[in-house]
């Protein structure tokens, strides 16, 4: 690939972009990065707890893991019945939707810092992911 112009970026220019006014961009983006990290952490911990409960129940009851998943509408009832596979399937589903949840948080965070462009981009990604979640069920 041809590079028609090359120059290094002086380090003193790296702190603040001349195209952005207000607080340094790094501080504003902190909210977005923190939101993304927090949402991933929450999703992982919820999934881990559900998975742990399911595995402990399986061990205590001497049950083996199911070979198929419960259909999503039946999961709440199965949870109330204390079925092992309900906890495990819900853990799997929690993991699957965690990145979707993160997209929501990232979009909200971009909106909060006034970055409408990337709020819109994040919402587009969210819409595409939502289609991938809904389409197979149709």
């Amino acid at each position: 690939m041809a590079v028609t112009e090359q120059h290094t970026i002086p380090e003193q220019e790296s702190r603040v972009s001349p195209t952005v006014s207000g607080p340094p961009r790094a501080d504003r983006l902190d909210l977005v990065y923190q939101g993304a990290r927090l949402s991933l952490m929450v999703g992982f911990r919820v999934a881990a707890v559900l998975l742990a409960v399911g595995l402990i129940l399986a061990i205590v009851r001497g049950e083996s893991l199911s070979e198929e998943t419960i259909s999503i509408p039946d999961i709440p009832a199965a949870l109330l019945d204390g079925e092992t596979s309900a906890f495990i399937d819900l853990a799997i589903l929690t993991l699957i939707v965690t990145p979707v949840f993160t997209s929501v948080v990232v979009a909200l965070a971009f909106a909060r810092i006034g970055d409408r462009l990337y709020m819109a981009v994040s919402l587009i990604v969210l819409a595409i992911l939502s289609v991938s979640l809904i389409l197979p069920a149709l």
Partner: protein
Amino acid sequence: MGLGELVALGVVSALAAVLGSMLGLGGGVFMVPIFTLFFGIDQKFAIGASAIAVVANSVVGSSVHLRTRLTNLRLAMLLQVTTAIGATIGALFSVGADPRIVNAIFGALLLYVALSMIRKARAPSARATPTPDTPPQTEDARSLALRLDATFEDAATQRTIRYVPRRVPVGVGLSGGAGLLSGMLGIGGGVVQVPIMNLMMGIPVKAAAGTSAFMVGLSAVATSAVYYADGQVNPQVVVPAILGVFVGSQVGPRLTRRVATNRLVLVFVLILLYLGGSMVLEAIGVALPWQ
């Protein structure tokens, strides 16, 4: 499936994650062929399990990259637009596709990765003048207008690295291809995404890897959802895979620091050639000895 098999699946998944992290690849690249070739697991269940394991790995692993700002969130979301579309299409295709077609594509990908590693190791210029981690920067007006420039602290060199992605439209377009492969094969897609960002877009390899680590989770959501909805998720395969990948992803980076990774490249190449060749043979109907 007996307890022994479940434990074996978990151990294999952990090893796949360790190998993947040492090579800069995801565990899915190893998991799907090993599950199908050696455990006799149906290809659809293997892909479903791998995709969910990729999500789990990304959810856990992204936190570090986000904290150190190796992940360029704006760039990740922008590239994710086409990646997610590609992943959805790929997943919808593969869930109903003839397994031989998927095997052939997977095998070809593994062989390509192996040959790329051989080429990279043999290139004399790579030894004489190592490729800089940070390619020469050209200020891309479009990237600056899109606020895609980013900064991160390189812990290895204690330097602040600022970069400006180049060729953003090309990167966005090619990311769709990465998504397509990810959705079709149940892998993260980092094996394609990182070279796109590093070689095509001029992003330092650490930032490319950090951004990819965040993106692969989003990409694998499409595959996971499609396969779950189609009933192609077997908890007996998924649970050991998730647990194994979690353990392996903790061990892998620690091992990478201690082991002379370049000395293991030949071993990894042989593994990839073996698995890739096996997948292609399986696709064309050649019976493998252990089946």
